[in-house]
């Protein structure tokens, strides 16, 4: 049990965040809370990508001293991809919030069920 936990604790954390983010997006009916759920889902996927690239007893991939041992460095490619993904996540959140502000000014409410009823 303890070794199972030690091996898979990062996967459980990322997996739990993805599930909670999906639950918020599917069930809640306030628009700003749905956007918060989108942000949590984003964080969960990034955590999963970095934990796939980890090597046991590894070090960070930076050659800080000339004679450093490079046998046990972790994989640098997932880190480069996740760096891009974090910045794109914040750009999508900003644009979604601007659309939510315009929706509030047009309909007067942010409740998704009431907005769906008012369709003409």
């Amino acid at each position, binding site marked *: 049990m303890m070794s199972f936990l030690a091996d898979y604790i990062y996967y459980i954390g990322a997996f739990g965040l993805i599930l909670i983010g*999906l*639950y918020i997006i599917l069930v809640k009916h306030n628009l700003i809370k749905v956007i918060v759920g989108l942000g949590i889902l984003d964080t969960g996927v990034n955590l999963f990508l970095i934990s*796939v690239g*980890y*090597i046991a007893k590894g070090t960070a991939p930076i050659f800080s001293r000339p004679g450093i041992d490079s046998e046990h460095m972790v994989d*640098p490619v997932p880190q480069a991809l996740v760096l891009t993904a974090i910045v794109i996540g*914040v750009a999508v959140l900003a644009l979604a919030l*601007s659309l939510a502000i315009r929706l509030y000014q047009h309909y007067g409410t942010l409740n998704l069920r009431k907005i769906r009823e008012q369709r003409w």
Partner: protein
Amino acid sequence: MRRAISIFLLIIVTVGISLSLAKIPFGVPKTKVGRHYINEGVKETGAANIVTSVVVNYRGFDTLGEVTVLFIAAIGLGAVLSTVSQKTARKVESASLVLYTGCRLLFPLILIFGTYIFIHGHLTPGGGFQGGAIIASGFLLIYLGCRERRINRVVSNLVESLGGLIFVVIGLLGLVFGGYFLLNFLPKGTANTLFSAGIIPIIYVAIGFKVGSELASIIDNLIEES
């Protein structure tokens, strides 16, 4: 009814993900491309930070796409929020003297720290995106502390456009000098010094200025009305 369907969907997603996650072992090296970048990275690019050399040199085209996406999001936010009719201006109470002076004291220190991080992106952990975010946090501090100041819109747009333009021009110069877009054509120097790694520091300085002014203009567009 909707809650029952969504819980059923979540159970299906749970079973699917856990069945496939059980086959991925944790802590075992999985790819060969990473080993090639670690073994040959310092010799081929000259940068000591392997993640920087992957982001700017080996996969530089993805970074160009990401800079474009950030640019489109900032322009889209400005366009969506600009047609709002101005309500009567809300009365903003000015901050106390201690808060005002403290924010004015901290602001240049935060700017210097952010500049340090993106200039040394190829030697230590850091880079353009992290430094740009720290610079935008400095501008957020000015918005929260000294409440009547606003950033200069013309200068911010100019810095943002120049940053993106320098990135594309350096890529096209690589096409002129060598044969393909974003070729590393400047001399590589000795590793672990400031003036090394070819075009990587120049691109990161341009990205740092661009991301910093872009995030500050996003905050300025959102605060605008009140």
